[in-house]
């Protein structure tokens, strides 16, 4: 067990930190419509609309089905604030505010209001609800990169790695695309995202093990 941890830590130390270069990636307003397909049955369950909008130096990401809204600084894609609704054993609304040194979380829960302050770790940290759309700005020529991820649902920060596995063809309802297959490694679980090879690297699909998001339509304004 100790040997594994040392091995893991040495591997982790070798990995370089994720670098995001948002230049030429985000336009004024983009709308993505994804079909959500059940991995077991293959049937489309519902669809979600994700709006990415550039406004006053911020990128605003609004995901309808996940009921999440994140604002990130456009220059380095570091998070500024987030709001997420969860409906599990009651209704929860989780607000998060990011400062240089802290993450301040205010949650409305069925048991009343909660306030949590977390120390912001050094290095790149992303909000979970911005992850998929921020990775469009990553350098796809680097095989493995690590980052820290803030999970609003349990107010925790986890380590993760993004690994570019290769280029392949992907058939989505919006058409056939040449994509990068990117593994999102959370340590215990892994997910896969597919980004168009062509700039601005639209997310064509995302597979969380249970559901697959497949691009049906995208509009840039």
């Amino acid at each position, binding site marked *: 067990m100790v040997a*594994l941890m040392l091995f893991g830590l040495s591997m982790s130390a070798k990995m370089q930190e994720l670098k995001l270069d948002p230049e030429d990636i985000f336009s004024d307003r983009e709308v993505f419509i994804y079909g959500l397909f059940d991995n077991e049955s293959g049937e489309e369950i519902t669809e979600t609309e994700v709006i990415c909008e550039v406004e006053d130096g911020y990128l605003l990401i609004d995901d309808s089905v996940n009921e999440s809204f994140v604002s990130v600084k456009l220059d380095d894609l570091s998070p500024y604030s987030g709001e997420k609704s969860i409906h599990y054993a009651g209704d929860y609304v989780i607000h998060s505010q990011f400062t240089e040194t802290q993450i301040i979380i205010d949650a409305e829960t069925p048991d009343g209001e909660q306030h949590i302050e977390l120390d912001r770790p050094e290095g790149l940290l992303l909000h979970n609800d911005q992850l998929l759309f921020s990775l469009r700005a990553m350098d796809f020529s680097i095989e493995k990169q690590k980052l820290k991820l803030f999970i609003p649902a349990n107010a925790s920060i986890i380590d993760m*790695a993004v690994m570019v596995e290769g280029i392949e063809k992907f058939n989505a309802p919006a058409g056939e695309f040449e994509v990068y297959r990117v593994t999102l490694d959370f*340590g215990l679980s892994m997910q896969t995202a597919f980004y168009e090879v062509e700039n601005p690297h639209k997310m064509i699909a995302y597979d969380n093990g249970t559901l697959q998001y497949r691009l049906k339509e995208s509009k840039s304004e």
Partner: protein
Amino acid sequence: MAGVPVPIRISAFVFAALVGLLPFFLRSKKIGFGWLLPFFWGASSLYSVKLIQIPIQKAITSAMVGTEIVPWMRLLFYIIPSGAVQELAKAIIPIIFLLVGLRLGSPSELWGPAAGAGFGITEAIVIVGINPGAIGILALVERFSSTLFHIGASSIAVGKGKPLRFVWGLPLAMVLHALTNFIAFGLSDKMGYWPLEGIIALESIAIWGFALALNEKKQNYIVEK
């Protein structure tokens, strides 16, 4: 609140602890009140999950990020601390007391099962008993078998308090615990909840029965001439 009402949930867990402990008590000529100490210790040792197990699991999960370790092995490495930490936490005080000869009026073979019962019933109450969500019969079945499991595993770990027993009993309990969790996690997305809980319940009963068999007193046969 939907599902099984809280008083019925808690009564079910108390019943599970009684069912699990009863055969151990019935075999003892004397019961006394000393077993209450490991029982309450077992209950408080649940805190080891938050204090020790989860931080270790978090560190292991972080260490595995970006490595070539295959998924089933990642799960195994993640699961191992649950068995190691919980079994050690439940058994440590009974082991120390029995090693120094303090039984407080209860036979040594009751100390392990009592610690397991305290842990099992507290865990059941914390996870399911007072959970604000809708709790169904399945969750009660799961916690019922889990309480039996904890009683059996702690009995295997502590035995009658002889030093040689800890050398193999505690590691065996840790391995059985980790194995049970590994099966539960590993099969959770491969079959329905009821068949899975059925497998876990059978395994828990088998471990509890094995602990009972290990705990059996040696009979002195008198051959009449």
